[in-house]
């Protein structure tokens, strides 16, 4: 069975640096010194997929997108 790979993209121009993603899935997201999102794991490992999906839903600015392969 092939499990589809979760991919996450972040629009750094839209991000407001609320940090919700880092709080929700710190294995997948980080913030640069400017406070703006950095995606550590663009291809999200399955064990962090739930947290990453919650982070996308929690993002206040709509900067995060799921683009599953």
């Amino acid at each position, binding site marked *: 069975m092939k499990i589809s790979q979760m991919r996450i993209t972040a629009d750094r121009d839209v991000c407001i640096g609320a940090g*919700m993603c880092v709080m929700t899935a710190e294995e997948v997201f980080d913030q640069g010194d400017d*406070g703006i999102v950095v995606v550590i794991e663009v291809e999200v490992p399955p064990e962090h997929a739930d947290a990453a999906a919650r982070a996308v839903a929690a993002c206040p600015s709509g900067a995060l997108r799921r683009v599953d392969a």
Partner: protein
Amino acid sequence: MTETLQEEAREAPETPPEMPLHMRRKGFDPVPEMAALRDDEGVRQVETAFGMPAFLVTRHADVKAVLADSARFSNESRRAFDAPGAPKLSAEERDRMRAGNLLGVDPPEHTRLRRMLTPEFTVRRMRRLEPRIVEIVDDHLDQMGKAGPPSDLVADFALPIPSLVICELLGVPYADRESFQRRTGKLLDISLPMDERLELGRESREYMAGLVARAQAAPGDDMLGMLVRDHGDDLSTDELIGIAGLLLIAGHETTSNMLGLGALALLRHPEQLALVRDDPAAVAPAVEELLRFLGIVHSGIPRTTTRDVEVGGVAIPAGSLVILALAAANRDPRLLADGDRLDITRDAAGHVAFGHGVHHCLGAPLARMEMRIAFPALLRRFPRLALAVPFDEVEFRAFHFIYGLRSLPVTW
């Protein structure tokens, strides 16, 4: 602070405005009419506290949709100044009072200002603050332990802790707290006459102007110093004053009311209080649930429609005021089941207590950290913490931009 609160409660204004529907509460809960409105029509035409017609949006999905759409729902509401009886300001003063107020501007202006502040509130930066916040909390618990029981948890714990934290962060002398705590408490007291609040706003700006001038002469290691050093060329002095004033108000009025009301909510639910006290893993979800359940910011800043729009099936013309009922949205059955019940073991992450969209609370990571430290520390220090008065006698601070308590007498 107790004296200040009593002073605040003195004579009623000449014509007390009627409390708007979305601010009316019974204890912790929005009045039943709010739930009925949310679960039935969803959007209703109402009047604001200042007698302006507005549309009240109550459903969670609609509230999020409005907050996410700053192009059609603007924060740059000039109409709010046109309320009947509002003091007339010169265009110059109006501009000066608006400068640097992140809650009063839309992108791209908002983005410009917010980006200067985001580095100061990263999750990592907050973790670095943790030891100092722990120390501040412990100091206040020590003082409570020496002076009491009893104690007023608002005056001795809920207000001073966030106040001291934001003072240190921002670079505001804590010695000045009595005057700025009094001013901000009244600035947000919607029952006071508008010209009185305007005067307080002027006093606040004057105070912040002094601090900004000092930071400009000798920028320190605090946030004001950083703003002057890193952005002094991009920010006017009025903007610096506006930003600093907003952070000072937002930094202590919000978290302090969460600490006071949250402690009361836990005292009313002893089995949940025990969980927060005894199980470190229960604390973070408990804070989210308290944020959701208490919804202390009734509605945040009203939006103004920039064109004809539709919200929840209701047509709203361009130029209308839109009020977001955050507390009602947080209990929407479409968000979660049994939302009128406090349950710290549930996943409350979808709440809109910090708002949503580009104006989502800048200080949310700081507020969360303060609460995650303060609640368990309080309950561990005083495991037998209890109300010192009957619940019916606890004074809620009703007619205020932010819901809270006037005082919370406790014993242990």
